[in-house]
């Protein structure tokens, strides 16, 4: 009994030491359980990507979808030693698909600001220094407001804006993650930011913060 436990523990430890490509080969060879090591290894990466892009309540579901997509697409994985990058692509595109589906829904939420958001915005807009509000509670309000403003953008604009301006990834990397051309990403990112700024300007103006 004890010996069995030691053997299993030893096998687990050696499997955990295997490289990504070796684990992929094991999964392709029929050892589905080996996928758990990839799951554990890249869970933080995927949640890092999804947490910022998707609504809190949907994060786990989207992350699950990403790993299932990765598993079913393992046959197409060919770039040796770049599993993290390959998985990130799947994650970014899954988030993009998520927003495309959300926008297609007839009942699009958040058509106007909530009372709390409007009140917070009025405080910010009338304040002399916006930076003075940089405490945790205010940061949550800011995140909600940004999410509301980004809801006014298309799924494409939203995704490219997040990659290029919010996460400050190089344009080339964003293009590769999205499967778009570099020029397309540059143009889209510029337009998306202009649209977002227009939304923000309207918000500030509506709250009387024009001074």
């Amino acid at each position, binding site marked *: 009994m004890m010996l069995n436990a030691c053997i299993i523990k030893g096998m687990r430890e050696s499997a955990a030491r295997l490289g990504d490509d070796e684990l992929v080969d094991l999964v*392709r060879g029929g050892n589905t359980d080996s996928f758990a090591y990839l799951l554990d290894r890249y869970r933080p990466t995927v949640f890092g990507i999804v947490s*910022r892009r998707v609504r809190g309540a949907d994060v*786990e579901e989207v992350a699950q979808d990403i790993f299932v997509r990765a598993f079913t697409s393992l046959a197409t994985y060919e770039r040796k030693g770049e599993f993290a990058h390959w998985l990130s692509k799947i994650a970014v595109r899954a988030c993009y698909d998520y927003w495309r589906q959300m926008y297609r829904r007839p009942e699009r939420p958040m058509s106007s600001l909530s009372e709390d958001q409007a009140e917070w915005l009025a405080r910010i807009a009338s304040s002399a220094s916006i930076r003075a509000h940089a405490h945790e509670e205010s940061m949550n309000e*800011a995140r909600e407001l940004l999410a509301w403003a980004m809801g006014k953008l298309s799924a494409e604009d939203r995704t490219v804006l997040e990659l290029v301006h919010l996460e400050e990834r190089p344009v080339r990397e964003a293009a590769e993650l999205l499967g778009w051309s570099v020029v397309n990403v540059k143009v889209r990112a510029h337009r998306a930011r202009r649209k977002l700024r227009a939304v923000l300007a309207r918000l*500030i103006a509506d709250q009387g913060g024009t001074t």
Partner: protein
Amino acid sequence: MKPPRKRIDEFEAFLFSAYRAREERAPDESWRERVMSEIGRRSVPAAEGNDQALFGRFAWRFAAAACAISAVLLVYIFSNGIVNYEELAMKFLENPIDFLI
């Protein structure tokens, strides 16, 4: 009235910094189990789809070239018509006099 550009810059920078300061969510153990049980229900992706994926990659790679060649051929056929030179040559060789008359 539109707010000054500096004000929008400041507001935008504040929202962006709030976005970047967001904490990442960490899933619990039940999430891991759910994913692995979902994966267990799927078939192993090894052999299946490999040929399809390979075909898909190559088919799409040559799709544009194939379309361009088809278009060129169509233009050529419409401008010159279809003439079966081989058949004409055979007829000539079989009976040159009849063919010429």
